[in-house]
């Protein structure tokens, strides 16, 4: 049969059937090639779109969008998952040419959502970083101010504890900032500020006396009367201004010399009882001179004087002091000072060389007037600022 075909016996049949079949096969091959090429290209488009969306989501996650833009990240990831479903449906369809445009558009939307999430997360992280750094810096300043106050004002153990807790909270805030847990860092910084504020409020209450017009007028009157006495009697007199930490020697009513002094470590308060470590305020006299002692030379004052005794009795009667409280004594002007800090239990300490000079110029009976301040100073300003609710430092 084949032989006959080849020989041309059925040549007519050959041309009638085989040629169209060959043409059809060729056409099929061409169509298959074109379809395959288009399909492959569209598959590649879908994969590229999927890759871009995946990269964008990965970048958003790397920017900690989980923490800073969680809802937006979830939305972007949900969009990417929906796109993946659409992609797989197209890939597994019988028709070999997938609808890559629709899938690509879905992925592009997911990619845009991820990019928006990335930007949002970065913005929020930047804001949180800035806010946290500012909170820590502010807490640090507040604590530094409170530390400074603590050197001027003797803090009771409870308030000293508050200050210690403020330091600890600030330390925690710094660790959290370093670890990137910014929310916790800011929260602890705010805690630190609040604790420091309590200390400052206490300091302001203590310093309020220095802004009280009546008290200030009394201190000024004491000082003027002491100077007037010195002028009138032609003798030496001493005025100690606690806030300024200055002892001024007046001779015949004129300032002859000033000396830097260290005071009781609770100097800011007026002495009310034994053991309060406050330097008393009042008008005293030197009642004894000692040429040698544990703190070099010393000039003993007549604390408590009559006014102190009256005030002490009133305080005990009113319950401001416990019945067991004593009035205290042995307040001196002595040597071993010049330490640059307040360390005595209520005495006034000067440098030994200054003590030599002072010792030679005064004697028993010399008036010694001790006042909180003789002007509206930094402490008064601090108390007023705190009272008015504005931040401020005493020095």
């Amino acid at each position, binding site marked *: 049969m084949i032989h006959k075909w080849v020989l041309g016996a059925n040549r007519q049949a050959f041309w009638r059937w085989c040629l169209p079949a060959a043409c059809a096969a060729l056409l099929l091959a061409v169509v298959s090639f074109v379809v395959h090429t288009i399909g492959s290209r569209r598959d590649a488009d879908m994969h590229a779109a999927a890759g871009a969306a995946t990269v964008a989501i990965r970048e958003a996650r790397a920017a900690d969008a989980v923490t800073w833009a969680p809802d937006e990240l979830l939305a972007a990831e949900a969009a990417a998952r929906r796109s*993946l479903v659409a992609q797989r449906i197209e890939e*597994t369809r019988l028709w070999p040419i997938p609808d890559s445009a629709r899938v690509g558009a879905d992925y592009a939307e997911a990619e845009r959502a991820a990019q928006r999430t990335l930007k949002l997360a970065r913005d929020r992280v930047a804001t949180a970083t800035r806010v946290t750094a500012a909170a820590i810096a502010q807490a640090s300043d507040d604590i530094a101010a409170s530390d400074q106050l603590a050197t001027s004002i003797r803090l009771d153990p409870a308030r000293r504890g508050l200050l210690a807790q403020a330091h600890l909270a600030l330390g*925690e805030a710094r660790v959290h900032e370093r*670890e990137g847990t910014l929310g*916790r860092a800011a929260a602890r910084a705010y805690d630190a500020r609040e604790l420091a504020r309590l200390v400052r409020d206490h300091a302001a209450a203590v310093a309020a006396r220095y802004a009280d017009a009546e008290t200030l007028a009394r201190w000024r009157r004491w000082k003027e009367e002491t100077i007037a006495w010195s002028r009138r009697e032609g003798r030496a007199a001493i005025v100690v201004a606690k806030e300024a930490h200055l002892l001024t020697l007046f001779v015949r009513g004129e300032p002859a010399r000033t000396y830097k002094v260290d005071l009781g470590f609770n100097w800011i308060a007026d002495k009310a009882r034994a053991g309060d470590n406050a330097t008393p305020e009042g008008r005293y006299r030197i009642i004894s001179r000692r040429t040698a002692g544990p703190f070099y030379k010393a000039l003993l004052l007549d604390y408590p004087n009559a006014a102190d005794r009256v005030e002490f009795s009133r305080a005990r009667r009113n319950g401001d002091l416990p019945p067991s409280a004593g009035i205290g004594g042995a307040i001196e002007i002595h040597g071993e000072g010049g330490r640059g800090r307040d360390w005595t239990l209520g005495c006034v300490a000067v440098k030994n060389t200054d003590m030599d000079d002072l010792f030679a110029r005064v004697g028993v009976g010399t008036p010694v007037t001790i006042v909180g301040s003789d002007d509206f100073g930094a402490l008064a300003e601090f108390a007023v600022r705190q009272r008015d609710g504005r931040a401020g430092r005493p020095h």
Partner: protein
Amino acid sequence: MRSKLGLVIFVLGVAVSVAGCASPPKTEIDAVKTSIDQAVSAGAGQYAADSLKSAQDAQGALDAELKAQEGKWFPSYTKATELAAAAKAAGEKAVTDAAAGKEKTKAEAATAITDAKALLTEAQDLLAKAPKGKGSAADIEAMKTDLANAATAITDAEAAVGGERFLDAKAKAESAKTAATTVKTAVETAMAAKKK
């Protein structure tokens, strides 16, 4: 002839039924969910975020494949089974990584607490030896208060470890270390000045 036609129809019917009724690999899918739930419970979100993300991505790919096959007349779950195996493995890795990450953070917190305790003891011992007198009594009392608060912070850090808040614990212990060091340095400086 009729019996042959019947046979062909029967075979075709069975083939269509088998192909059309293929069901998703439920056991494998459940295993994936279980492994990822375990990872989340183990704290992978905090301690092995990248591993958890990989597992969740793998689960997402599996879900997509399942949804793609759902709408088909002749679904095939061969690829879904492969994806389920990969997702389960990723979930199990996230569990392991979470445990390792947690242990690492816990160890860091424990080290910080141990160091803080040692420093606190050193500072307390040194403070006990500090020269007492009129000029230092107030400072010593203040420093004692500071150390007492540092000790409280260490106790709080230990409680935080108990509550598995390891980063909080580390922060508290580090802060207590700083407080103890500050006191120690202040006492050493004062003692050195005294010797001069």
